[in-house]
């Protein structure tokens, strides 16, 4: 750590909003599909029409409990919904139904990695709330004086996850968000996609001199729609606050927006003029009672969580920790690894293949509707395992497979990529090569031993890489030694 760095202590807290992937909205039965035409997924309840009343979505409550259990939170036996009152054109009721002083989950943690070491980040609370609509302006199709409003998003269920201010660097913050994403996806309760807005993140950051007793004012950064933006915004804000401290100026608490294009923040409003939300308990909903039975039921249906999966992979497949972490990053990835391993009976080959070859095509392949490629990969790797194909050839076939969507056998036949492991045939080829390279042979025999590799190269070239390397080496050495 540089001397300059030691003089400051960085404190970061995160507030993340995860959009739940329930079929219907939090307080009505409207669908929640992404990208539907504006205002087509609405009803009196989510439009806030006079007389309409909210009815709580049980699935959303179960999702909240799932995340709470996964993060070792205390699940409230009775939690209550509150109204957060403020005026905004895309907030049709004039208030948002959320949870305030009695959230559904409290005091848990999520383990992250910091400089290679494990670190627990406390989760203050997880609560349920409804999303607001979307105001559209500054688009080509919107007249300059007008604002259009799309209320499809109104009432979409969100989980708000609030950490304690225990993150100490942008790296830790990024790791936290990644692990949160991973958890949400493992639990299958949210797509947790930052770019699409199904995971939204605000960061509170405060830089202090290392010996300061109290936290100084903090900045809340909004609009962080990628991990890169999160990291950049934090780095930017840390530098800005350090400069202020260094020049003896006072930092005011503020809410800022991150402008990723210009790599800078711009002030939204100062905390002093912030709203008084006038929270009070939502009289249209009864207190939410969660029975021990429901918690037990959800507990029994919990999928294997990332940490447990890593531990099992280490033990069951003898992987390195780094490989296990990569392979368990998402449930489909972990499932695919296990499936392939089962098919080919070789975990180390499967893991090597997944990490070295598969990952670069992962998004493409997972997004395909027909999943025949899984079987193709297993077939391909079986050929590698049985030494019918060299790694290099398998790699070539695989890249062709992804593009052409043909089976490995077809490509193999077409490209003549079978591994040459016929001993007699290989010997014949090698003898011919030696015949054609009398000069090199003479030099080799005169003691220039590295020329052995020249011969290997020639064999590979002649066979188009199909020669079984081990067998070719053995035959070549035997012939050369006998001469």
């Amino acid at each position: 750590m540089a001397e300059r760095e030691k003089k400051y202590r960085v404190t970061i807290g995160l507030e993340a909003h995860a959009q739940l992937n329930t079929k219907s909205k939090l307080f009505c039965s409207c669908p929640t599909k992404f990208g539907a035409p504006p205002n087509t997924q609405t009803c009196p309840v989510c439009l806030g029409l006079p007389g309409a009343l909210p009815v709580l979505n049980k699935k959303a409550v179960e999702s909240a409990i799932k995340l709470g259990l996964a993060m070792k939170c205390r699940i409230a036996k009775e939690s209550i919904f509150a109204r957060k009152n403020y005026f905004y054109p895309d907030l049709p009721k004039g208030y948002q139904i959320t949870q305030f002083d009695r959230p559904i989950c409290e005091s848990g943690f999520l383990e992250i990695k910091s400089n290679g070491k494990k670190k627990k980040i406390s989760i203050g609370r997880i609560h349920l709330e409804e999303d607001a609509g979307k105001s559209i302006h500054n688009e080509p199709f919107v007249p300059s004086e007008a604002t259009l409003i799309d209320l499809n998003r109104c009432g979409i269920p969100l989980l708000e996850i609030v950490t304690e201010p225990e993150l100490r660097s942008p790296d830790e913050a990024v790791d936290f968000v990644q692990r949160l994403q991973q958890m949400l996806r493992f639990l299958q309760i949210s797509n947790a996609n930052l770019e699409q807005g199904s995971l939204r993140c605000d960061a509170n950051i405060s830089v202090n001199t290392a010996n300061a007793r109290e936290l100084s004012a903090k900045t809340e950064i909004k609009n962080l729609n990628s991990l890169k933006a999160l990291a950049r915004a934090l780095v930017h804000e840390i530098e800005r606050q350090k400069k202020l401290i260094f020049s003896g100026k006072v930092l005011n608490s503020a809410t800022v927006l991150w402008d990723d294009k210009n790599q800078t923040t711009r002030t939204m409003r100062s905390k002093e003029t912030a709203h008084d939300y006038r929270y009070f308990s939502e009289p249209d909903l009864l207190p939410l009672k969660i029975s021990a039975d429901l918690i037990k039921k959800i507990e029994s249906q919990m999928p294997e969580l990332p940490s447990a999966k890593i531990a099992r992979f280490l033990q069951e497949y003898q992987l390195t920790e780094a490989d296990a972490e990569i392979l368990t990053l998402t449930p489909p990835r972990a499932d695919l690894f296990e499936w392939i391993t089962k098919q080919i009976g070789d975990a180390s080959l499967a893991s090597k293949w997944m990490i070295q070859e598969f990952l670069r095509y992962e998004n493409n392949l997972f997004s395909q509707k027909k999943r025949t490629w899984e079987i193709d990969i297993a077939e391909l790797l079986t050929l590698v395992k049985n030494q019918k194909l060299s790694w290099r050839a398998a790699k070539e076939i695989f890249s062709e497979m992804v593009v052409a969507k043909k089976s490995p056998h077809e490509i193999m036949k077409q490209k003549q990529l079978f591994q040459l492991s016929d001993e007699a045939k290989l010997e014949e080829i090698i003898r011919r090569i030696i015949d054609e390279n009398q000069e090199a042979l003479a030099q080799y025999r005169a003691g220039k031993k590295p020329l052995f590799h020249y011969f290997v190269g020639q064999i590979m070239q002649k066979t188009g890489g199909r020669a079984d390397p081990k067998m070719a080496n053995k035959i070549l050495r035997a012939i050369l030694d006998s001469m």
Partner: protein
Amino acid sequence: MDVTRLDFSQIHPLLLNGSVSCSRIVRDYLKNVNEGFPLNAFISILAEDAQIRAQKIDAKIRQKRAGKLAGLVVAVKDNILVKGIKTTCSSKMLADFVAPYNATVIDCLLKEDAILIGKTNMDEFAMGSSNENSFFGAVKNPIDHTKVPGGSSGGSAAAVASRQAMAALGSDTGGSIRQPAAFCGLVGLKPTYGSVSRYGLIAYASSFDQIGPIARSVEDCAKIFSVIAGHDSRDSTSSTHRYPAQFFSDIAPVSSLKIGVPKQFFSNDIEPDVKRNIESSVEKLRQKGAQIISVSLPHADYSVPAYYIIATAEASSNLARFDGVGYGFRSDEAKDIGNFYAKNRSQGFGEEVKRRILLGTFVLSRGYYERYYRKAQTIRSLIRRDFSAAFQKCDFLITPTSPTTAFPIAARSYDPLAMYLSDVFTVAANLTGLPALSIPCGQDRDGLPVGLQLMAPRFAEPFLFSVAKAVEKFCPSGEIENG
């Protein structure tokens, strides 16, 4: 025969045996509606719809498939949504608002073949005790046109009392069914909170509001209640309690009753004529063998302040949706977004509504929440406890419905506090969620009706009806000439 002089219970057998038709009934009522114009009881009249419906129901009667309320000509307070019909809440804000869906109670009535004759005038957004706060002008008391009909369901009460409707639906947040029923000499029921769905009722204060019937007889009231009561999955606060199918199977013999008379409710400034009539009714019940017990409700004095704090707090939030964005009044003078809200709301709402929104916003705001809102909630639970204790000693409570009979129009309109005190006996039932019924029990020296209020434990409406029937027998309500 003037069919409009008959109660539903009297006319129903005649309908079924064919001596009178729905069409005839509707025609006669519509004639009264035309003549009753000076009372200003209606905002919308559904003449054509009612006539068409009457013919259809006549056909159903002939085919013996008519519903339980076939032939009931009912008026509906204009804060209850009827699909395709203007629902104004008597506000400029919603003067042109056409309801896009039916309130649950409307579906219930239509299913049993009731006939809607019109939407009734009311205090704007149900805020008032005199029906003078209406964008469409004050309603007059049919018994004495210089007097108020009571509020906020004054239009409903005036329509029934002047025989422009057989019965009506009102909504009761702090006495808005019972007080106008008392002022107009009718029976009005504020049901147990949660027993009638609030879906489609434009909310004033969610934790108090309850829809209920106003009718000329206890039996009519009970019949309507039996149709509109029941669980509604669209209202989360809706109870799953099931009332017995037959409401009058067990008429409690008066001699077995223990009647509680809360002493606090008789120490207030009650008009001597009101006091005399109530006391005489209690005495009559005693003569019939009922046991009279004096009970204490020590926190009753705080009912009015606690009610106005909580109700206005909820109102300030409930009315936030009326912002002129999606529907409702929109000023064309706005210059920016803050101004847009300010203009729409200051021009769209009347004075009393604005007063209550401001009061509610104040009591919820930071710094005052603890001093007002929280304390009022504490008082609310203390009052609940008072009532539970009282019902340990007696079966039901008797109080006046209002400390006065109908007062002159404009007498209190410039003294909001005096107006708020009109609710002194009625708000306790809303604070506690208990059922309460007002029944006429005589007249003052000017011939204005006096209302007697009966309050019972939760879901004891059938019991209230049977006691009210006993009162009805010895206190027949006076005949009113058509206003």
